[in-house]
């Protein structure tokens, strides 16, 4: 691939149009400006531009290796852009609530469900602060909200994949962040847990938080996510979900995937 990406069929250059700018502040929560991300000089995301509108609920879909997780990591400041920039509008990456892919948690460490959730208070309590009664009450409320009432004292090693994901959602909830990034939140958990957690995401959306989730199940995206970014290293389409997930775009994403050749991959910019 050396040619610059052609404009996508249903490309809304700046994502979905905001309804109303709530407090007269910038309507965008996050803007990507000609962003190129690379792992060891292999580009994972090419020249991506666009915005996540404040309060929007966006799914990122696309083939494996298409740069979805890489994009979230870059927003978190874990990867430095090879080119272009990410405008966070003054939001410190440490303030963003982020659910990485499941494998990064060592479940052999003996902590309880409540302790794991309490980590959501980290921004305020840090490594030394003491938790107040209110902090504990809020953690309890969050655990209730994700369906883990009664599991507070259970060691995390005894949880199922779905229960652990619920506990991590409780942690995210306590972070009270205006921007929430979820990397495959429903991967390898039971259907019931996925439905419940989708309800939590809808609640965040209702509270006006900006939510971005990397997902695989297109059905779920169509049902619950108003906006979608289809990413196959290049932006294939970004905008209202129904437009983005049109067959013409999905076909184009597959064509891009087929053309990938690691050895020949050089960025033309």
């Amino acid at each position: 691939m050396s040619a610059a990406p052609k404009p996508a069929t249903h490309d809304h250059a700046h994502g979905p149009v905001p309804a109303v700018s709530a407090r007269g502040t910038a309507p965008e929560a996050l803007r990507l400006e000609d962003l190129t991300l690379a792992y060891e000089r292999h580009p994972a995301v090419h020249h991506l531009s666009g915005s996540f509108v404040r309060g929007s609920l966006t799914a990122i879909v696309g083939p494996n290796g298409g740069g979805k997780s890489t994009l979230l990591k870059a927003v978190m400041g874990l990867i430095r852009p090879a080119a272009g920039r990410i405008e966070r509008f003054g939001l410190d990456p440490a303030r963003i609530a982020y659910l990485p892919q499941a494998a990064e948690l060592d479940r052999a460490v003996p902590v309880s469900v409540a302790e794991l959730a309490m980590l959501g208070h980290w921004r305020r309590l840090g490594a030394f602060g003491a938790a107040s009664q209110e902090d504990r009450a809020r953690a309890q409320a969050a655990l209730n909200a994700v369906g883990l009432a009664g599991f507070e004292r259970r060691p995390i090693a005894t949880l199922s994949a779905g229960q652990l994901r619920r506990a991590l959602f409780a942690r995210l909830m306590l972070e009270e962040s205006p921007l929430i990034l979820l990397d495959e939140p429903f991967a390898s958990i039971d259907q019931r847990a996925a439905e419940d957690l989708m309800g939590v995401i809808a609640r965040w959306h209702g509270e006006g938080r900006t939510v971005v989730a990397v997902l695989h199940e297109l059905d779920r995206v169509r049902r619950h996510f108003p906006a979608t970014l289809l990413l196959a290293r290049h932006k294939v389409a970004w905008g209202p979900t129904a437009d983005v997930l049109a067959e013409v775009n999905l076909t184009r994403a597959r064509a891009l995937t087929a053309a990938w050749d690691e050895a020949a991959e050089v960025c033309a910019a």
Partner: protein
Amino acid sequence: MISPYDLLIAPFAEFVFMRRALVGGLALALGAAPLGVFLVLRRMSLVGDALSHAILPGAALGFLLAGLSIWWMSLGGLVAGLLVAGLSGLMARTTTLKEDASFAGFYVLALALGVMLVSRAGTPIDLIRALFGSALAVDDAALWLMAAVASLTLLGLAALYRALVVECLDPGFLKTHGGGLGTLAHLGFLGLLVLNLVAAFHALGTLMAIGLLVLPATAARFWAETVWTQMLVAAAIALTATVVGLLLSFHLDLPSGPAIVLSAGALYLLSVAVGARDSLYRRHVQSPHLRA
């Protein structure tokens, strides 16, 4: 018939060297065993072992420069240990070599260098002492060192406790939320580890210094559930092993270092067999209905 007093109390009451060994062991147990709980949690037991060997050439250099001075040997050991820890970490980050492999490379190098230095400069007795320690020959300086290290370790663990637990549990979370605290906790932990190995070196020698860190900590997992209760249990086990080991060494005329480590090992095996949590007994004897 030997009385309980003669068996358990008299050796310490009558002999100064037994009292010194006991106090030294107490200090080691209070510092090293809780630290060992984190060492095991972080899956760094073997890295700790490698580091304990890495101390030898430094201690030998100190010995070359100043003779049998506890401070010079400790300083040399500290510098050598930190150097190997730092270099291994650097190698792991700058090359494709994994951290455990680079540790293995460095520590064999360090051990060989250390044995060569001690052999050239000292007597065979010195070499034996460096390799296997001399719990019954700790002097005032060594006691001060052990007590200082134990105090520093407990203070350091108290300060870093939450950061260390989170670092074990979810290093990614600390990376995004901690603002460099993860790195600080890791370096602080490595520093405390080297300090404890240097302190243990004098009593147990370079080959067994890791014993009081790893064995009680591993055994504690079969008794206690949370990190801090495991630390308490680990300290109690290390303490027991020290007392039992010293008494065995006294009554049966055995070398003290191996006697202490073997006692810790026996408590570890006992814990694996009949511990309150997840032991062989609990799994296979007490609740056979769980096996379907």
